[in-house]
């Protein structure tokens, strides 16, 4: 990780230009060449220092449903239930967390109405309650990441 990579990460988390030669323009502001910027981005994507490069879309504004859900699953049933929950294609990610509510997953559906239906299906299949925690208001999303 050298100074230039650091500068790319610190300065290019947003504001990438929309124009014919955006890498050239972004590179100029970083004081490097267009090819060097592209090569460095490729390298950082390859070694996973960057998980993505491009537009970040706002899921709800695309018309879909999105919610955070939690479940309290007894230790001995945990793996079985995790498997049942993960089978649903609407479950985008799922994390085990150290709390009585020990399973936390994000549901992403084609329509907002589908959220309730999928929740009910998950409750029926697993036999455990799903706590639905959709966001009521968003205050901030992003990470001003300074290296």
């Amino acid at each position, binding site marked *: 990780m050298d100074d230039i990579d650091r500068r*790319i*990460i610190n300065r*290019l*988390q*947003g504001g*990438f230009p*929309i*124009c*014919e030669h955006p*890498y*050239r323009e972004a590179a100029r502001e970083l004081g490097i060449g267009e090819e060097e910027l*592209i090569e460095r*981005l490729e390298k*950082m*994507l390859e070694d996973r*220092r*960057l*998980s*993505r*490069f*491009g*537009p*970040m*879309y*706002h899921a709800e*504004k695309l018309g*879909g449903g*999105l919610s*955070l859900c939690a479940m309290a699953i007894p230790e001995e049933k945990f793996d079985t239930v995790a498997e049942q*929950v993960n089978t649903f*294609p*609407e*479950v*985008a*990610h*799922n*994390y*085990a*967390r*150290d709390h*009585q509510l020990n*399973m*936390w*997953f994000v549901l*992403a*559906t*084609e329509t907002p109405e*589908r959220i309730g239906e999928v929740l009910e299906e998950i409750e029926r299949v697993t036999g455990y309650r799903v*706590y639905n*925690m*959709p*966001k*009521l208001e968003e*205050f*901030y*999303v*992003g*990470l*001003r*990441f300074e290296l």
Partner: protein
Amino acid sequence: MIDTLDRAIIEATQAGLPLVAEPYEAVAESVGCSAGEVMSRMQRMLEQGIIRRIGAVPNHYVLGFRGNGMSVWDVPDKKIAHYGRLIGELDFVSHAYHRPRHLPHWPYNLFAMVHGRDREEVMEKVEQIARLLGKDNRGHQVLFSTRILKKTGLRLGASR
């Protein structure tokens, strides 16, 4: 709000922008329109907030920020917008949301994802939030993830 061509552009770019000199031209070729059309539509989606931003998404875990805790807070409903914005302004917070309580098991209505190099640093930062809330902090917890059970990311059309 979005039509078929917008949708095609979203599908073509949600995994990333092509790393070529003229990336919008490359997207245009794959969806079958002009680069000008792609650029003006992306500009419009950016202005409408459909695109949050365009740029690099760092992988904080690989970059050494191994600690991330979901801090949850019970604050008075009337003040939640005020505190939500204040907490959202902290540079170690990546997400701040108002979510519903589930009483009596779950009294927390404010969620803030806190990042640090390790758990210890996360806990120090959580203390910083606690100080900021003062008496309006009626209780909080930090939930660390112990295992990733599934991670496919959000994909338009993933459920079809």
